């Protein structure tokens, strides 16, 4: 375990080296390609499909996939492909914001718990308590309290995933704090804050990055579950979960309504998991014990 830390500062063009190692793993390469595709589809949606996601066309409602509507149309005649692409925007936006929020909060909690001994017991029991709720249950309960905007979803899911990030960061901190360079910094009179910021944080970036990728994947699934239950983003926005919920009653008649958004979601989550696995192996296989 200690070897991981000692090797971490090998920083000869670290990003390029990391990318090279990732590309060599077939699964991670596949994941990155799928993610790139989803990103492009989300960013360039208005230029890639000729329909706006809210444009209705009652005459052509529930049309099966065809040249005009590649993935068919829904119960209002809206283009499913366009809605899937705008759904990717919602999922990716929420995912990134939740990763940022839980990454930041989890790092602060985790590094404090791991380094400041007095607070460790209390902080870790609180994370235990929060992890005793299934993700989706804690998320819908928070949504009941917060509201129904995209930002409420981000806050709710950020709170749900903070404890996991905190656990990983704490685990890494506990290993690091016993190492000589931390001891040396302490001996030279560095305060808690400086040790955490300058000596611990940079060495925690690898496990943090891996955990963030998995949090991203979990967020997409839980967000879709929230929308599906009607407790997520407003039902008018074309999120994947909302689309599936809307298609539910046309099951058997218009199966593309649940398969198209569902497969978009599964492909994105699978790609994130593949990249996360690849990152973990590329950064250091020993991270498996942490994340």
């Amino acid at each position, binding site marked *: 375990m200690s070897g991981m830390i000692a090797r971490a500062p090998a920083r000869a063009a670290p990003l390029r080296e990391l990318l090279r190692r990732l590309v060599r793993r077939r699964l991670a390469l596949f994941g990155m390609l799928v993610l790139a595709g989803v990103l492009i589809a989300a960013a360039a949606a208005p230029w890639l499909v000729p329909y706006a996601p809210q444009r209705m066309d009652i005459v052509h409602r529930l049309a099966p996939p065809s040249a005009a509507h590649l993935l068919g149309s829904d119960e209002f005649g809206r283009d499913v492909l366009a809605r899937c692409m705008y759904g990717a925007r919602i999922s990716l936006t929420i995912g990134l914001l939740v990763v940022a929020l839980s990454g930041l909060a989890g790092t602060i909690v985790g590094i404090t718990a791991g380094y400041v001994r007095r607070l460790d017991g209390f902080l870790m029991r609180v994370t235990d308590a929060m992890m005793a709720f299934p993700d989706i*249950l804690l998320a819908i*309960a928070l949504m009941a309290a917060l509201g129904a905007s995209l930002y409420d979803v981000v806050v709710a899911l950020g709170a749900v995933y903070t404890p996991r990030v905190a656990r990983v960061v704490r685990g890494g901190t506990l290993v690091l704090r016993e190492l000589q360079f931390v001891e040396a910094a302490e001996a030279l009179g560095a305060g808690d804050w400086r040790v955490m910021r300058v000596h611990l944080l940079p060495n925690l970036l690898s496990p943090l990055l891996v955990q963030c990728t998995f949090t991203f994947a979990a967020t997409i699934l839980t967000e879709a579950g929230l929308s599906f239950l009607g407790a997520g983003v407003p039902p008018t926005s074309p999120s994947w979960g909302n689309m599936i919920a809307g298609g*539910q009653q046309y099951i*058997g008649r218009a199966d593309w309504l649940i398969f198209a958004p569902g497969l978009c*979601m599964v492909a994105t989550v699978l790609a994130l998991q593949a990249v996360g696995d690849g990152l973990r192996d590329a950064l250091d296989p020993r991270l498996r014990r942490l994340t």
Partner: protein
Amino acid sequence: MLRRLAGMLVVMFLVASVVFVIAHVIPGDPAAVMLGPSATAADVAALRARLGLDASLPVQYLSFMRAAAGLRLGQSIFLDQSVTAALAQRAPLTLQLTAIAAAIAVGLGVPVGVLAAVRRGSLLDQAATGLAMTAASLPSFWVGLTLIEYFAVRWHVLPVAGYGPPGAGPLAHLRYLILPAIAVGIPNSALIVRFTRASMLDVLGEDYVRTARAKGLGPGAVIMKHAFRNARTQVLTVLGLTVAGLIGGAIVTETVFGLPGIGNLVVSAVLRRDYPVIQGALLVISGAYVLINLAVDLLYAALDPRVRY
């Protein structure tokens, strides 16, 4: 043992505190939110008094904790029922669903994980690892809808949704639970495959496994008697952790299949802002999770004589 119990009590205490915090981060007045815009000021004041919301926060916290400790969960706002009765009425279904889903997840996950470890690096191992990752990417509600599409709508093998009549025997209900249990079980088998594989790989590298092989024991006996017996405690631990995923999956999947369980109760309570029901369900579900993990720890000691509490 005592320390473990004390730790559990601390976690339960914090769980109840988390529930209290969630119920009190509501911006504005929960009584007004619950009654909707058409309520009169007098109605709101009456509900505030009934819910004890007119007391100060510390007082509310104390009375909430006291009530939670005695499982007195209050009255539902919308159902003409106490929260305890509402939960008790719906718990058996959710328990059955979770138990069958757990059986599916273990029945699928453990053999696949063991096989993948034994044939490490083979095509079988790669397929198993890939499938596990795919399963982990599947939302259970979507798997449920896909199963309905094929098994119920197209092939008419199993009922689309709903639940058997109240008087019917348990076997009549089982038909309605098969598809939802598969939908919950498959995504949750992923973690079990990965953990079983990893712990089997650890054990298979041990000296005593080499010794067993060297003395001429067949591969079946080595794997089952020597390796798996030692890997199963770790498998048990991951099953304890999976319980949260199973219950979470059950909550969403009950809605897909129209099953009248705790999940359905919670979701409708959230949509109607029935806070007492939400609080009660949060307490009971997280309590169940904590208790199940305590049971796992105790079983752990029973399976592995080296572990003592």
